[in-house]
């Protein structure tokens, strides 16, 4: 049941937001699966390339499609970044599935959205985008819990030969995450030297 409910919620959120003509990408647990790291997750996290000024329009759009805001005021301002949380109850289900929208206002978020990767959902006729593996690694490094560090290590192991190391090095340096990236590398590949572009 949960798989269908989460995917249905993702599909509905994606199609609801599409008319806003903004770049969007799936992040979080579902996006990890697109990069060969599969673990259970029960919510939908989206990065959307809209600025703070569009917050009210996003809320209006989502509410019209059956999403309820989780908090009041609906737009959480975290420094210069915004988070809007919604709950959605798909028909005939007992759970309200959470949908988090991160508004992509920073230079890094815009860079991440510019590298998103197209994919399709199994069984659902909709094309959507996921964050690149490098950007998922950077977001996980920012989150910093032991679970996130483990996700980082798993992404490194599964995608070692395909990662854009110069991009990872550039943004880990820009975001002050070089030590964190180096630590995860050592845990993922004990005894192996990091690629030359990495710190």
């Amino acid at each position: 049941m949960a798989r269908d409910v989460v995917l249905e919620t993702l599909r509905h959120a994606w199609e609801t937001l599409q008319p806003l003509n903004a770049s969007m990408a799936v992040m979080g647990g579902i996006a990890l699966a697109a990069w060969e790291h599969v673990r259970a997750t029960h919510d939908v996290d989206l990065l959307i390339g809209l600025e703070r000024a569009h917050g009210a329009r996003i809320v209006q759009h989502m509410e019209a499609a059956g999403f309820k805001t989780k908090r009041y005021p609906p737009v959480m301002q975290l420094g210069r970044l915004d988070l809007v949380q919604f709950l959605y109850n798909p028909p005939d289900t007992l759970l309200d599935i959470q949908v988090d929208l991160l508004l992509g206002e920073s230079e890094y978020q815009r860079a991440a959205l510019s590298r998103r990767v197209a994919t399709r959902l199994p069984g659902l006729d909709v094309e959507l985008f996921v964050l690149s593996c490098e950007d998922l690694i950077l977001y996980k490094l920012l989150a910093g819990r032991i679970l996130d560090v483990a996700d980082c290590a798993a992404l490194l192991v599964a995608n070692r030969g395909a990662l854009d190391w110069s991009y990872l090095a550039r943004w880990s340096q820009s975001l002050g995450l070089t030590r964190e990236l180096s630590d995860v590398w050592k845990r993922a590949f004990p005894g192996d030297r990091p690629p030359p572009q990495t710190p």
Partner: protein
Amino acid sequence: MTDRPKQPDPDPAPRRRMTAEEGIALWSDLMHTCEQFLLAGLRRKIGADGDLDAAYRDWYARRMEEHDQMMVRMLHELDRRSHEHGA
């Protein structure tokens, strides 16, 4: 029986990468399996007469509170580091 490997190959041949669609399909299967175990665990916890739907909703709410703390922390970190490092 004799054609089985004795130990993992330290230098395995390159493998075919899973597509994003295949990864999400696998996630979908995993979700179904995990939920069955979750429900079994909740049932064991609340007993045969307990309200399983309520227990499931309560479990989900607690998970989402943890998730919210992570999101807030992540965005605070991104904001702080973007500010400090000019990103």
